[in-house]
């Protein structure tokens, strides 16, 4: 921060970023107290898209909440779907067939790539580069087509069921996924040539928006934000769920703590997701995709259950308190971006406005998930 911004005698002014602003990717409002071009205080104002998802879960049956899970983080809907069905399966003691678990991993990882591709495009768009967005959408479109063929919808998937998945995949999905992976493998170097090595991007991201490790722990940030600050923390490795332990993949970790590190984590994660999908397709076992003994009206025994999955933005946790009836007594959803956004106020202090937006873009915010 310049001396000018630090001096208390200067007048400051308040500026609203959002709730209708393209760089906030939704209805997030940030109340900025500015000193010229420098941010003195950035206060996120939430609640513009609060839809009471937790309350909705508490007054309908377990199965009726399934479509809601795809409407929180609309970019990585399947991970949310996964978290919820896993929590309920744990509560009700339902065994999931192996083929269904593999299909869950394949589709979730495909969805993760599509989420990161959209973030990549939108992030560079925030920084003022329009072209990469169109390239990323071209690839993302392929994933949406693949997932549409299996799940029936393009964005708000509702594919997982308690004890399995909605329906089995056909061979053309597996062939198409393999073709897509070889396509994306050949396109990633192009992305790096076009964006990552670009001098303008490097100048705008390197050493910009530092998030020191202690800030990460204080605010409970997870996902690429934590991994960009040197934390080797990924629930797929640290608290393995589903069939993830059977795959060989790495967790990209960068210790620079700046926006560039978070950018690189996500770019590397796409490669790792592709590795997981390839292995999963090769190992995909035959068999049923839905458990046989799933009661029509679920009544999990009374108790307290928690289950967390690694979504594209960090760990998403579902806590269920059951009282033995056909509706949950309490449903608590822990969304990653809420914690990731919380650190923005402290991290952006004294930054230039343009740099603060670069920092905000590198957090990968999805507003419906913050508000729920």
């Amino acid at each position, binding site marked *: 921060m310049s001396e000018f911004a630090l001096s208390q005698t200067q007048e400051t002014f308040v500026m609203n970023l959002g709730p209708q602003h393209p760089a906030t990717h939704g209805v997030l409002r940030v109340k900025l107290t500015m000193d010229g071009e420098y941010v003195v205080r950035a206060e996120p104002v939430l609640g513009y898209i609060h839809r009471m998802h937790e309350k909705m879960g508490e007054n309908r049956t377990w199965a*009726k909440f399934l479509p*809601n899970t795809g409407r929180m983080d609309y970019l990585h809907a399947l991970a949310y779907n996964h978290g919820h069905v896993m929590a309920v399966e744990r509560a009700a003691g339902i065994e999931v067939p192996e083929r269904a678990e593999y299909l869950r991993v394949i589709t979730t990882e495909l969805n993760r790539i599509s989420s990161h591709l959209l973030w990549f495009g939108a992030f560079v768009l925030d920084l003022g580069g329009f072209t990469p967005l169109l390239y990323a959408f*071209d690839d993302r479109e392929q994933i949406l087509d693949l997932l549409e063929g299996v799940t029936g919808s393009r964005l708000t998937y509702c594919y997982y069921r308690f004890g399995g998945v909605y329906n089995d995949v056909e061979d053309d999905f597996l062939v198409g996924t393999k073709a897509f992976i070889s396509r994306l493998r050949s396109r990633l170097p*192009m992305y790096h040539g*076009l*964006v990552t*090595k670009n*001098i303008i991007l490097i100048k705008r991201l390197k050493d910009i928006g530092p998030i020191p490790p202690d800030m990460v722990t204080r605010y409970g940030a997870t996902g690429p934000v934590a991994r960009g600050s040197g934390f080797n923390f990924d629930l797929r490795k640290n608290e393995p769920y589903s069939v993830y332990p059977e795959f060989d993949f790495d967790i990209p970790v960068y210790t620079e703590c700046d926006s560039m590190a978070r950018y690189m984590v996500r770019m590397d994660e796409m490669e790792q997701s592709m590795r997981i999908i390839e292995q999963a397709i090769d190992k995909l076992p035959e068999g049923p995709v839905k458990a046989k003994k799933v009661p029509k009206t679920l009544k999990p025994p009374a108790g307290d259950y928690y289950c967390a999955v690694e979504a594209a933005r960090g760990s998403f946790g579902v806590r269920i308190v059951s009282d033995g009836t056909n509706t949950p007594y309490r449903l608590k959803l822990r969304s990653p971006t809420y914690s990731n956004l919380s650190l923005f106020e402290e991290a952006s202090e004294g930054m230039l406005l343009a740099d603060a937006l670069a920092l905000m873009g590198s957090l990968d915010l999805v507003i419906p998930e913050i508000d729920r």
Partner: protein
Amino acid sequence: MSGYFTELFTGTKSLAIGLGITIKAFFQPVVTLQYPYETLEMKPRFRGHIQLTQDEETGESKCIVCGMCQKACPTGCITVAGKKPEGSKKKALTRYILNFTTCSLCGQCVESCKPNAIEFSKDYNLASFDKNDFIFDLLKRLKEKS
């Protein structure tokens, strides 16, 4: 000072590489679709709004008015009614209303339907200025179809 010139050189080179990629893309085939002049075929599993299926023998609906779809719907957008015709043991469908304004296209009704009386339609051009256009009378639609 030498760092300045090295950066100047590598920076300019990186911009030239980026331009090269976009120029290459300029001569590649177009990936966009000229909607509404061109449209895509919907996938077989596409989840549109629901419609009643037709019994091939009788031409009537296969619905047995069990009400499972109504019960499975998270938003309660389905209303089913039926009565027993004289001399028949089974109920026959008299009314099937889908309030599409609250439907979230989750497909739980289709999953819950044992006699396969409902299926997903392939309609997706559903914009309208009138709210009443989204109150679908599915039985009427089925009769119009046959």
